[in-house]
Protein backbone atom coordinates (compact mmCIF):
# COMPACT_ATOMS: atom_id res chain seq x y z
CA UNK A 1 0.00 0.00 0.00
CA UNK A 2 1.36 3.46 -0.80
CA UNK A 3 1.67 6.33 1.65
CA UNK A 4 -1.33 8.29 0.35
CA UNK A 5 -3.61 5.25 0.53
CA UNK A 6 -2.45 4.43 4.06
CA UNK A 7 -3.28 7.98 5.14
CA UNK A 8 -6.64 7.93 3.36
CA UNK A 9 -7.50 4.71 5.22
CA UNK A 10 -6.36 6.26 8.49
CA UNK A 11 -8.63 9.28 8.16
CA UNK A 12 -11.50 7.04 7.09
CA UNK A 13 -11.27 4.69 10.07
CA UNK A 14 -10.42 7.29 12.70
CA UNK A 15 -13.10 9.95 12.99
CA UNK A 16 -11.08 11.73 15.67
CA UNK A 17 -8.17 12.56 13.37
CA UNK A 18 -8.61 15.92 11.66
CA UNK A 19 -5.39 15.89 9.63
CA UNK A 20 -2.36 13.66 9.27
CA UNK A 21 1.04 13.73 7.63
CA UNK A 22 3.26 10.76 6.80
CA UNK A 23 6.93 11.66 6.50
CA UNK A 24 10.45 10.31 6.39
CA UNK A 25 12.35 10.43 9.70
CA UNK A 26 14.02 13.67 8.55
CA UNK A 27 10.65 15.36 7.92
CA UNK A 28 10.40 14.88 4.14
CA UNK A 29 6.67 14.58 3.45
CA UNK A 30 5.53 11.33 1.83
CA UNK A 31 1.81 12.00 1.95
CA UNK A 32 -0.59 14.31 3.69
CA UNK A 33 -4.29 14.90 4.12
CA UNK A 34 -3.59 18.64 3.95
CA UNK A 35 -4.13 20.26 0.58
CA UNK A 36 -1.36 22.80 1.17
CA UNK A 37 2.06 21.18 0.74
CA UNK A 38 3.84 23.92 2.71
CA UNK A 39 1.58 23.39 5.70
CA UNK A 40 2.13 19.63 5.48
CA UNK A 41 5.89 20.23 5.46
CA UNK A 42 5.60 22.55 8.47
CA UNK A 43 3.60 19.94 10.42
CA UNK A 44 6.19 17.26 9.55
CA UNK A 45 9.02 19.55 10.71
CA UNK A 46 7.18 20.21 13.98
CA UNK A 47 6.67 16.45 14.45
CA UNK A 48 10.41 15.83 14.05
CA UNK A 49 11.14 18.70 16.44
CA UNK A 50 8.71 17.30 19.02
CA UNK A 51 10.44 13.91 18.94
CA UNK A 52 13.91 15.47 19.14
CA UNK A 53 12.93 17.79 21.98
CA UNK A 54 11.24 14.96 23.91
CA UNK A 55 14.31 12.73 23.65
CA UNK A 56 15.96 12.49 27.03
CA UNK A 57 17.64 10.11 29.41
CA UNK A 58 15.18 7.30 28.68
CA UNK A 59 16.27 7.25 25.02
CA UNK A 60 14.50 8.00 21.77
CA UNK A 61 10.74 8.42 22.01
CA UNK A 62 8.65 6.23 19.70
CA UNK A 63 5.39 8.06 20.18
CA UNK A 64 3.99 11.07 21.95
CA UNK A 65 0.83 13.01 22.56
CA UNK A 66 0.92 16.73 23.26
CA UNK A 67 -2.41 18.02 24.55
CA UNK A 68 -3.36 21.70 24.65
CA UNK A 69 -6.82 23.25 25.04
CA UNK A 70 -7.16 23.58 21.25
CA UNK A 71 -6.58 19.87 20.64
CA UNK A 72 -3.89 17.21 20.60
CA UNK A 73 -0.90 16.48 18.41
CA UNK A 74 0.21 12.86 18.03
CA UNK A 75 3.49 11.64 16.59
CA UNK A 76 4.36 7.98 16.06
CA UNK A 77 7.80 7.03 14.77
CA UNK A 78 8.72 3.86 12.91
CA UNK A 79 12.17 2.70 11.82
CA UNK A 80 12.41 5.10 8.90
CA UNK A 81 9.20 7.08 8.96
CA UNK A 82 6.86 8.93 11.20
CA UNK A 83 3.22 9.86 11.12
CA UNK A 84 1.82 12.97 12.77
CA UNK A 85 -1.84 13.72 13.37
CA UNK A 86 -3.96 16.37 15.01
CA UNK A 87 -7.24 15.78 16.80
CA UNK A 88 -9.78 17.79 18.73
CA UNK A 89 -9.85 18.03 22.54
CA UNK A 90 -9.66 14.94 24.72
CA UNK A 91 -9.30 12.25 22.08
CA UNK A 92 -9.27 8.53 22.86
CA UNK A 93 -5.49 8.36 23.09
CA UNK A 94 -5.08 4.59 22.86
CA UNK A 95 -7.27 4.34 19.78
CA UNK A 96 -5.54 7.19 17.96
CA UNK A 97 -2.08 5.75 18.70
CA UNK A 98 -3.22 2.31 17.52
CA UNK A 99 -4.59 3.77 14.27
CA UNK A 100 -1.38 5.72 13.66
CA UNK A 101 0.77 2.63 14.20
CA UNK A 102 -1.46 0.71 11.81
CA UNK A 103 -1.05 3.48 9.23
CA UNK A 104 2.75 3.33 9.55
CA UNK A 105 2.68 -0.45 9.17
CA UNK A 106 0.39 -0.28 6.12
CA UNK A 107 2.56 2.39 4.49
CA UNK A 108 5.43 -0.08 4.92
CA UNK A 109 8.41 0.04 2.62
CA UNK A 110 6.40 0.85 -0.50
CA UNK A 111 5.85 4.44 0.53
CA UNK A 112 7.58 6.93 -1.73
CA UNK A 113 7.98 10.68 -1.31
CA UNK A 114 5.09 12.71 -2.73
CA UNK A 115 7.47 14.49 -5.14
CA UNK A 116 8.52 11.18 -6.72
CA UNK A 117 4.90 10.04 -6.94
CA UNK A 118 4.04 13.33 -8.62
CA UNK A 119 6.90 13.00 -11.09
CA UNK A 120 5.76 9.46 -11.90
CA UNK A 121 2.22 10.76 -12.51
CA UNK A 122 3.64 13.55 -14.73
CA UNK A 123 5.72 11.03 -16.69
CA UNK A 124 2.63 8.88 -17.20
CA UNK A 125 0.72 11.92 -18.45
CA UNK A 126 3.58 12.87 -20.78
CA UNK A 127 3.68 9.31 -22.12
CA UNK A 128 -0.07 9.44 -22.63
CA UNK A 129 0.17 12.80 -24.42
CA UNK A 130 2.98 11.49 -26.63
CA UNK A 131 0.93 8.40 -27.48
CA UNK A 132 -2.09 10.63 -28.19
CA UNK A 133 0.07 12.89 -30.39
CA UNK A 134 1.30 9.94 -32.44
CA UNK A 135 -2.23 8.64 -33.04
Amino acid at each position, binding site marked *: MDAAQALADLVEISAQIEAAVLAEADGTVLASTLADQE*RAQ*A*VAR*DAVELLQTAA*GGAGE*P*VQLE*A*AVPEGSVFVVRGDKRLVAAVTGREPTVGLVLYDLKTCLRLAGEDARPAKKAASRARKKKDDGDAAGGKA
Partner: protein
Amino acid sequence: MARRKLAAFVVALGSVAGAAAIWRRRSAKGREHVDVYFADGSMVTFAEGSDEAARLLPIARRALSQARG
Protein backbone atom coordinates in the same frame (compact mmCIF):
# COMPACT_ATOMS: atom_id res chain seq x y z
CA MET B 1 -22.90 0.48 68.33
CA ALA B 2 -19.25 1.37 68.20
CA ARG B 3 -18.78 -1.08 65.28
CA ARG B 4 -21.59 0.58 63.33
CA LYS B 5 -20.08 3.98 63.87
CA LEU B 6 -16.70 2.70 62.74
CA ALA B 7 -18.22 1.10 59.62
CA ALA B 8 -20.07 4.33 58.77
CA PHE B 9 -16.87 6.29 59.25
CA VAL B 10 -14.91 3.93 56.95
CA VAL B 11 -17.64 4.13 54.26
CA ALA B 12 -17.72 7.93 54.49
CA LEU B 13 -13.93 8.09 54.28
CA GLY B 14 -13.93 5.80 51.24
CA SER B 15 -16.58 7.91 49.52
CA VAL B 16 -14.61 11.11 50.08
CA ALA B 17 -11.39 9.49 48.81
CA GLY B 18 -13.21 8.12 45.73
CA ALA B 19 -14.81 11.46 44.93
CA ALA B 20 -11.45 13.21 45.32
CA ALA B 21 -9.77 10.71 42.98
CA ILE B 22 -12.48 11.19 40.33
CA TRP B 23 -12.28 14.97 40.67
CA ARG B 24 -8.46 14.93 40.35
CA ARG B 25 -8.62 12.63 37.33
CA ARG B 26 -11.21 14.78 35.56
CA SER B 27 -9.43 18.03 36.26
CA ALA B 28 -6.08 16.57 35.10
CA LYS B 29 -7.63 15.34 31.85
CA GLY B 30 -8.31 18.82 30.54
CA ARG B 31 -4.88 20.17 31.46
CA GLU B 32 -2.04 20.73 29.04
CA HIS B 33 0.46 17.89 29.09
CA VAL B 34 2.79 15.84 26.93
CA ASP B 35 2.89 12.05 27.19
CA VAL B 36 6.08 10.56 25.76
CA TYR B 37 6.37 6.82 25.11
CA PHE B 38 9.75 5.10 24.71
CA ALA B 39 10.79 1.93 22.89
CA ASP B 40 11.30 0.02 26.15
CA GLY B 41 7.62 0.52 26.99
CA SER B 42 8.19 3.27 29.53
CA MET B 43 6.13 6.45 29.46
CA VAL B 44 6.65 9.85 31.00
CA THR B 45 4.14 12.67 31.39
CA PHE B 46 5.35 16.26 31.30
CA ALA B 47 2.67 18.29 33.04
CA GLU B 48 1.89 21.92 32.44
CA GLY B 49 4.47 24.08 34.19
CA SER B 50 7.39 21.67 33.78
CA ASP B 51 10.47 22.72 31.77
CA GLU B 52 9.91 19.95 29.23
CA ALA B 53 6.27 20.92 28.69
CA ALA B 54 7.35 24.55 28.27
CA ARG B 55 9.61 23.43 25.40
CA LEU B 56 7.20 20.94 23.81
CA LEU B 57 3.79 22.62 24.05
CA PRO B 58 4.62 25.66 21.87
CA ILE B 59 5.73 23.27 19.10
CA ALA B 60 2.47 21.35 19.46
CA ARG B 61 0.46 24.57 19.30
CA ARG B 62 2.33 25.59 16.15
CA ALA B 63 1.66 22.18 14.56
CA LEU B 64 -2.05 22.42 15.41
CA SER B 65 -2.23 25.90 13.96
CA GLN B 66 -0.43 24.80 10.78
CA ALA B 67 -2.68 21.76 10.36
CA ARG B 68 -5.85 23.80 10.77
CA GLY B 69 -4.69 26.72 8.65
